[in-house]
């Protein structure tokens, strides 16, 4: 379908989102990425029965960790889509890029401290 989406999105391939580990996501933030999203099958249509549901829980968990670290949990998302939804894939890439762009560079990279404190909303946005 060759739908255009922003080139800053790069894919790390796993057999199932059920394989996505807390460590992998946290490592990505540690390395300085500005946002991560996990793209799994539609709910109820997991090729491995329920891997995507497990991934969803893990993503929620990492969001809490990010919050505790003062990183905006919005930088991490879970999306569900099917292999036939090319249009949606491009849309998500766009959506996520815009979201992260609005948040600005990751505080880990900039070293500017906490960007987010729970209960107070965004401390600093750009």
């Amino acid at each position: 379908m060759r739908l255009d989406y922003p080139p800053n999105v790069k894919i790390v391939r796993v057999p199932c989102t059920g394989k996505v580990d807390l460590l992998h996501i946290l490592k990505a933030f540690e390395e300085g990425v500005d946002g991560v999203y996990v793209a799994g099958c539609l709910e109820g249509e997991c090729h491995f029965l329920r891997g995507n549901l497990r991934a969803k829980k893990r993503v929620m968990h990492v969001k809490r960790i990010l919050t505790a670290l003062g990183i905006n949990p919005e930088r991490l998302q879970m999306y569900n889509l099917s292999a036939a939804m090319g249009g949606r894939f491009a849309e998500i890439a766009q959506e996520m890029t815009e979201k992260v762009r609005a948040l600005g560079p990751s505080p880990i990279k900039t070293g500017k401290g906490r960007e987010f404190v729970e209960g107070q909303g965004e401390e600093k946005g750009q």
Partner: protein
Amino acid sequence: MKAGEKIGAVLVVGGGIGGMQASLDLVEAGFKVYLLERSPNIGGAMSQLDKTFPTNDCAMCILSPKLVEVGRNPNIELITFAELLRLEGEAGAFTATILRHPKRVDPSKCTGCAICHQYCPLEVCSEYNEGLTSRKAIFINYPQAIPSTHVIDRKDAPCTARCPVHLDVREYVGAIAAKEFTQSLEIIREKLPFPGIIGRICPHPCEEECLRGTKVDEPLSICTLKRFVADWGVQHGKSRSQNPPEPQYQERVAVVGGGPAGLTCAHDLARLGYGVTIFEALPSLGGMLRVGIPEYRLPRDVLDQELQAVLDLGVEIRTDTRVGEDVPFADLLGEMGYKAVFLGMGAHQGMKLEVPGEDAQGVYPGVDFLRDLHLGRGVKVHGRVAIIGGGNVAIDAARCALRMGADKAAIFYRRTRREMPASAEEIEAALEEGVEIRFLTAPTRVVVANGRVTGLELIRMKLGEADASGRRRPIPAEGTEFTAPVDMLIPAIGQEVVVPFDPVEEQIGVTPRGTIQVDLLTGATTLPGVFAGGDAETGPGIAIEAIAGGQRAAISIHRYLRGIDLAAGREEADRFVVEDVPPGIPYEGRRRGTPLPVAERTRTFQEVEAGFTEKEAITEALRCLNCRQCLGCGICLEVCEPEAIDYSQQDAIMEIEVGSVILALGFDAYDPHERGEYGYGRYANVVTSIEFERMLSATGPFNSTVMRPSDGDIPQKIAFIQCVGSRDHEHDYCSSVCCMYATKEAIIAKEHVDFIEPTIFYIDIRAFGKGFDAYYERARQTNGIRYIRSMVSKVTEDPTTKDLWITYVDEDGALKREAFHMVVLSVGLRPSEGSRELAAKLGVALEANGFCATVPSAPVSTSREGIYVSGAFQGPKDIPETVAQASGTAAFATELIASSRGTLLKKEDYPPERDVSGEEPRIGVFVCHCGVNIGAVVNVPAVREYVKTLPHVVYAEDNLFTCSQDTQERIRKVIQEEGLNRVVVASCSPRTHEPLFRRTLREEGLNPYLFGMANIRDQCSWVHMHHPEEATEKARDLVRIAVANAGLLQSLPMQRLPIRKRGLVIGGGVAGMMAALGLARQGFEVFLVEQEAELGGNMRHIHYSLSGQDPQAFLQELIGKVMAHPSLQVITNAEVVDHAGTVGNFVTGIMIAPTMTYRKLEHGITIMATGGEEYKPREYLYGEDPRVLTQRELEEQVASGAVDPGALRRVVMIQCVGSRTPERPYCSRICCSVAIKNALKLKEMNPALDVHVLYRDIRTYGLLEQYYTRAREQGVLFTPYQPEEPPRVEATDAGVHVRTRDIHLGGELSLEADLLVLSAGVIPRENEELAALFKVQRTMEGFFLEAHMKLRPVDFATDGVYLCGLAHFPKLIEESVSQAAAAVARACTILSKDELEVGGVVARVDAEKCAACLICIRACPYNVPLINEEGVSEINPALCHGCGSCAAECPQKAIELQHYRDEQIIAQVSALMAAGGTGGGV
């Protein structure tokens, strides 16, 4: 091959989901497969679906892996774009002849880059999108299609197919449009020596077929365009002057008749180098062209000029020579020394009117009149001329008569203008010139005075029924005679051929019509060496047909004289004809040249039609749709860098040897055009369900937006009309799937746009499958889909809003009218196009509707041994049933050839693997340009140079196409020379190309898991094509990530486990016995374990069947076969008590009563066939009153004589007892047909008996519908009831009193029954413990749960365990039989192998780290991890599916998923940010 040896290969015809499943099962069971598919790619109807019911799975998501599996298998040979022509030989050793259509793209060179598709200028109607969008002439239907090679579609245009000589209309019209007039003329002359003549006088049947005319506006002026180039040729000195060719052959040929047939035959033979003599009875050549067609239609200079071309070839002409009179026929082949003869006499004898007075002076037969006129024999015309007839001769005679000076010319025709055979243009021109035409009049008598005609008595006619010609027969209206004054009468009611010699005497056969009898393919008469064509063969016909006859004979004569088989290779295969045009072609009327003004016409013979000017011709030629197929413009040829395109490919015939054949021909959707039902084709917003399905699909025409075709608005109210093309007089069957797919489409539409309000108009909701009723109830109650039980009587369109008004009678009998924004017709399934012809060719019997005829005890066997059937061709069915049946068919098809298992399989032979552990990574990187796909966006050389700087990379290069065969050789060489131990390819998707590269590594002794891929096309150049710099940057990132991962790749050796080639079947009912017997016949040992003392299960209680087969006889025969089979061990009175092991090596313990002996059975696979049983009702006084029975009890009592139907007056049956209730929310599927079976039996035994069936929905799905029809015909009464208001039952002395609300009558129906029969549902037998032992899953209702509802219907999620019969879900005996066979086929995929390869991408536990916390056990969706004797988690690689859930959950990080180890993923994430941190930056 030795005599009697079976061939270990199977031909599967049809590449839909059924054909694919059968192929996979066959090949896994050790047989070579040829998968033949008519279209360019496999996938069938399922590839068009958006979602599947009842799980709403995305169809493409579940189909696509299967496509890849089939496409990748080295032992499945895909033969697509091809058809089966013949099947010779017998079961076990067939020879199949296959016709392959040219794809015009070489699959070994095509890389699937799709550049061609971007450049192709031709928009073609997309069949895949049901004509809602267009595609290119070079195309692939959808991105996941297999084979992934593009195809150039060069179907015939309908005009060419219709033309008797198959002129390449598109080509020569295209050349006119391009101003290449010389080229256009050459194209025509290839097949037609007389373009100027035919371009003037042809009645152009081609134009009737022109899609521009049938689908858009008016047909193209094909004929006039041909004339234009012919005239242009004359004006520009391009007329054909041919020097006589050098004589090639000694033999001379005689041609009898110098008309179009003879001239063409002579022309063609002379060009081949034969000496030819034409014998012509008249003084000049041309036949009817000269003496029949008037000059104002065909100027004689045009005629002479084109005939001269024949004379120029050196053909000898003998005019005024009538064979049979002037020259005896026998002399031609005798003393005159001709070696062959062509008979091309025309039909020059006018037919008589057969009325009194016909012989009077002034009566001049039409053909004679025209002939004498044209030969200048002094014909005089005056006064009032009457012409009788309605053909072109009548019109010609009339128009000539006016030109000759007649005061008045009147044509009398006995039918109406509609039936007139003359061409419309001729009729129009005659009327313009003042010819009077009187319809519905026929002559009864010629009025004669003094021997001269003075008048004509006529009678009025009226039209009756259609006759043999399809036209309505004229009938005289008595007493309406009248007389018209006439000075000259020209009868022109037809002409016939007169053979001037006695054909019988010459041993030449004639037909009852007096024409020469010829072989249609060759034109050969019954006398060797004599051929015929044109009018002599066909009776009076048109010139172009005569030309075709002459051409045919010329080929035959050449073959005859050269000793070549006359017929070989001339059989015309069915022409693939373009049927649709793409949407959105603007209206543009047909052009016509300016004719001579009427005033100038009538007194001269000057040509009337002027033809086109150059400008007119070009404009008209541009109207040609080219039937929107490939024109051979050559653009793709230029842009295709691998040079894969080959226009010259032709149809090719191939022969293959196979042991058996599977027909999986699938279905076609009913085309509602045929009867204009509900305004389809007339109202823009009436669409079919398959069109609607495409609209819902993300790959569909509107990107999954539901839009009205008329204005693109989102329709709020959508009506679905059920049973369109099903359950009617012509289709006495139910299409089985429509209720469910309509429900699905309604739900999905509502999911897309929540304000959509779907309404489904239905007769019965047939939600009879597993999970269907729950789906339907959810649709009704949760999704808010409105269901109305009513047949829609009428749909009309509001002309302004294009909304649709539906008129229907609601359940209370009130006439309602309601407006909808869109109407979806739930079209039924019918046998696929061409299946009837194929079945006839193969000698396979069909049932009345054209589905393949089978019997319930052998539901996949056709009437011809060795040919099996599956899927919708056997009867309408849904995907899981098709898949199950396909597997079953595979079992039957291989039983026959089991002795040849494995004989034809290609074994891949690789060198021993090199041990690379401990070596430093030495990575080679190959960066692909993919032609311009990557190269035009990404700076590939820059990426290559960058790659060289990365750690461990010892080699990097770039290739035009890394996947090409020569690059594979190159990679192998580089691995050797550079000592590589890891390879990375930066190109396209691993989904399609990883297997290829992995194979290359294996060929060089590297473990396939040492390969890595970076997708710099799909994930980079394609999606960032407008940002080349960023794309190049990203390509660097992606390759860096892949290289970082590659450094950590490890060899993953496969473990081999031996397989115990023995099966265990649990359950001795029909399903279990069929499964056990099937396995035994496949050559495997089998244990059949039954808990009861005897075999037979439920079947023991069944005594008669709908189809008439005797169930008990079938059962006894089956038990006999089971008991007698030497490798089948039956163990009755046995119960399973324990179970262990993995696929290939199971151990099951059983206890055998009455001694309670314990026995251990070792086996490789297990088939669960534990069955079901009839629900014991608690409703309707069952068990309280002896007059209340279940259906099974009724059947047994009727069979035993305990119930005598003759003594009964009324029997009431209640359906859905214990089914479709909150407690058991499923349909028991079989009760409707069982009730109908019993009702028919009772009626048969006592026709006076009153049988009343109270039902909710009658669910006689598929071909069972015919029995429902029969029951109604026999007087069985059916009354629906609502679940909220079930029938009330009371026991009285007189009988059982049943009361129910009759929704049709609106009142209460009160019935006093002798017997009340309850259709009690089916419930599974106790199986909970068994399920726990075997770790298999069950549904909420306790039926076994298959691995996947759609595509793995007989597998459990647990490998090596299969299911069949009632234990899966209620089903008919024939369905159990197919399903049992399916389980056998699936089991054979394991048992036929000697060992199982396990390992690869599986999870592995580090025992040192494991804390036995059990988290992995909970995380695994397949219950694989176990705590072993050492107290740590153990994951059996034979069972692991490789999802990695356990690894991600393991808190101790003791589990690693091979090939995706944490270290690897983290390395990739780190690499992402490595080069200056641009990786994740925004």
